[in-house]
């Protein structure tokens, strides 16, 4: 089979998963109280509340003497709540797919902590924050691979020797230490003991990148006159890409790009530590399996140096298996983001989720929006992993 046919087939298999996840969220959304649902779908009503009944002083009573809120009636009609469930489902699906993910509330945790998000469309707000999460994810994934693959290979080559035992301890500890505890210990260590990685900004040179970690980053005093440049202010002016590092480089502020990376270095390490612990065992086991195969024996028999055998012959072949596992690992990987972003006060989709559930009323728009967003990221990652695997290992395409 050609590779592109495989890709198309794999793409078609994505559809039921995405539809299924949206159906699941639809079922859960249906259990949300109607007034909350309307408020999240249409934004906070400027004049009337979204309650079903309102005080009759605001409007003429109907024949029963009760006053039904016209906004409520209009809202339920637009969401199809007065129609059968399949119809509601269809409306929900079309809204989700066309980007109508509702609005951030006025009094939710998100609105009080991130004031620029108040009353904004959910998709817009998540769009501001997604690049930050992706940057963190890219760094963390790189760190994961650079930790897991070499250590796993070394452990497999030195099976049951002290190095292997050490890697086993590393893997167990990564699994058993909650990542927020590792993160908070590292944070305290960096701030109180080491003094923190320093900022390279010309205006606040030498300060610790984590001292100010409860405030916004970078602090305004790092800029001339204490004012943020216009392209940095979230939601004000469209920055070229939305990715903070890339934007800083485009504007020639190399120090800001550097500071941004330094700032997410430790959070990325904490996420990578937990994920690498998972991945390590898979890498080790797949390497062990490959090392027992015949072509390794042939390579050794024809007199190749052990280094070449392990690096070129075994290493590349065991990587195939590692790539398939990456997709599985990715779910747990993204699940760590709300925690780490909340702990280090980083901008990102995860911290939005944390804020949206911290206080009641919950921000249902953000909760469901970030769930769908994370799911899409995971599905995309799985897709990329599968295609990469099929590219590397032709047997998969033929199967």
């Amino acid at each position, binding site marked *: 089979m050609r590779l592109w046919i495989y890709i198309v087939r794999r793409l078609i298999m994505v559809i*039921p*998963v995405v539809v*299924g*996840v949206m159906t*699941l*969220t639809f079922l*859960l*959304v249906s*259990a*949300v109280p109607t007034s909350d649902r309307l408020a999240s779908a249409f934004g906070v009503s400027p004049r009337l509340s979204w309650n079903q009944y309102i005080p009759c002083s605001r409007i003429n009573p109907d024949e029963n003497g009760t006053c039904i809120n016209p906004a409520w009636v209009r809202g339920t009609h637009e969401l199809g709540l007065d129609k059968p469930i399949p119809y509601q489902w269809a409306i929900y699906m079309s809204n989700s797919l066309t980007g109508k993910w509702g609005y951030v509330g006025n009094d939710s*945790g998100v609105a009080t902590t991130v004031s620029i998000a108040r009353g904004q469309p959910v998709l817009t707000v998540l769009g501001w924050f997604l690049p930050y999460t992706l940057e963190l994810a890219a760094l963390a994934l790189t760190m994961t691979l650079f930790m897991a693959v070499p250590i796993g290979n070394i452990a497999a080559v030195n099976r049951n020797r002290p190095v292997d035992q050490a890697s086993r301890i590393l893997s*167990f*500890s990564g*699994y*058993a*230490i*909650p*990542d*927020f*505890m590792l993160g*908070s*210990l590292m*944070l*305290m260590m960096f*701030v*109180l*003991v080491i003094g923190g990685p320093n900022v390279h900004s010309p205006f606040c040179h030498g300060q610790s990148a984590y*001292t100010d*970690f*409860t405030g916004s980053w970078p602090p305004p005093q790092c800029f001339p006159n204490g004012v943020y440049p216009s392209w940095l202010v979230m939601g004000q002016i469209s920055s070229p890409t939305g990715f903070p590092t890339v934007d800083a480089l485009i504007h020639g502020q190399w120090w800001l790009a550097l500071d941004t990376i330094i700032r997410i270095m430790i959070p990325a390490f904490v996420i990578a530590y937990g994920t690498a612990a998972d991945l390590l065992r898979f890498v080790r086991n797949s390497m062990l399996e490959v090392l027992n195969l015949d072509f390794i024996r042939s390579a050794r028999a024809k007199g190749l140096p052990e280094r070449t055998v392990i690096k070129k012959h075994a290493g590349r072949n065991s990587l195939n298996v590692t790539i398939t596992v990456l997709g599985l690992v990715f*779910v*747990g990987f*993204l*699940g*760590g983001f*709300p*925690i780490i972003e*909340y*702990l280090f*006060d980083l901008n990102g989709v995860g911290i939005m*989720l*944390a*804020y949206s*559930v*911290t*206080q*009641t009323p*919950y921000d*249902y728009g953000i*909760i*469901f929006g*970030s*769930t769908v967003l*994370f*799911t899409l990221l*995971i*599905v995309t990652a*799985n897709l990329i992993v599968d295609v990469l695997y099929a590219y590397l290992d032709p047997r998969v395409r033929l199967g």
Partner: protein
Amino acid sequence: MADESEKKVEASQPRRRRRPSPRIDQFRRTWYFFRRNTLAMIGLGILVFFAALFVSSFFYPADPTELTTYVATNGNPVNPNATQQQICTYEPGMGELPPGPNCYATPNGMPSVIAPTVNLHPATLGPLPFGSLTQNPGSAPFYDPFDGLVKGTQWSLTVSVGVVASGALIGILAGVVSGYYGGVVDEVVMRITDIFLSIPGLLLVIIVLAVLAGSVTSLWGRMSYVIFAFVVTWWPTYARIVRSQVLITREQRYVEAAKASGARGGRILRKHIMPNSIYPVFVQMSLDVGTVPLLIAAIVFIGFRLFPVTNFPEWGTIAALSSQPSVLSGFIEVCQSQQGAACTFPWWQFLFPGLTLFLFAISVSFFADGLRDALDPRLRR
């Protein structure tokens, strides 16, 4: 007399021992191999300790639904008539002397931070064997983590075992049915597990609870919703594992033989396929028992109200309370305001709750590893 002679006769004859049933036999063999694995035995030992703690936590004489809160007196003697329990403290750095016996020193500027106490003279652990767990180092009230961790054993273990047992039950049923019948059933069940597995567990638990249990405030109501939400997250893993096992098992000769002798589908599933394909689930179950408190900790950490009260005595909650960003920044602020003076790092606040979670997770993981090695003939050494 007659009895004795009868006994003698019995003893002289060769003892006719019934051969134990194959399942008991297998258990003995597994135990034999398990026993030779040092790490697994260490894991089992720690688990036995936790089991003992679980039983004793029911007899622990304190309110099991809230963390015990103390107030530090900060240089004053203890007032026995105060509404909240008090602990005598003083700040030696400020030139203060202990106002009475059994008074504990607190670091500069942190009146609610007390290091682990050990009373040497009456040879007791003191009021705070694991130190204090403060939410704000500058203010007086704080929690007692030792007390909380002991009380928390019952909640943590109940939730973990409840989640894993019910999740495994659903997963086994779904996996067996989908693996055995195959075809459309298989396809549907597997697509459903795909859906659940592509949502991060943390998010799924949060949305299920936020939507369904928003107005539930009673303790047991809340608890059953928590278990339900975790089960929703957990069952697909088991379904996947069981299915892959069933796919292997159903091709075995004995299943064919059972079919040939006219057994019905239900009987084959119950008697032949299920018992022979659920061993890998035991391994996964024992691993997951340790993971549930970790996930609870993560969810509580980001500020979601999982339990009816914020200071609920549960391991994950205690760990999450100990390292909240606001608490960390409180410590950092006090330290930075002291301008170079030696600053106390309250290690106990992180160490003991973290160690409890760590020991539990690592002991079940050692146990599961040993179990896997003992159950899988290929891995036996």
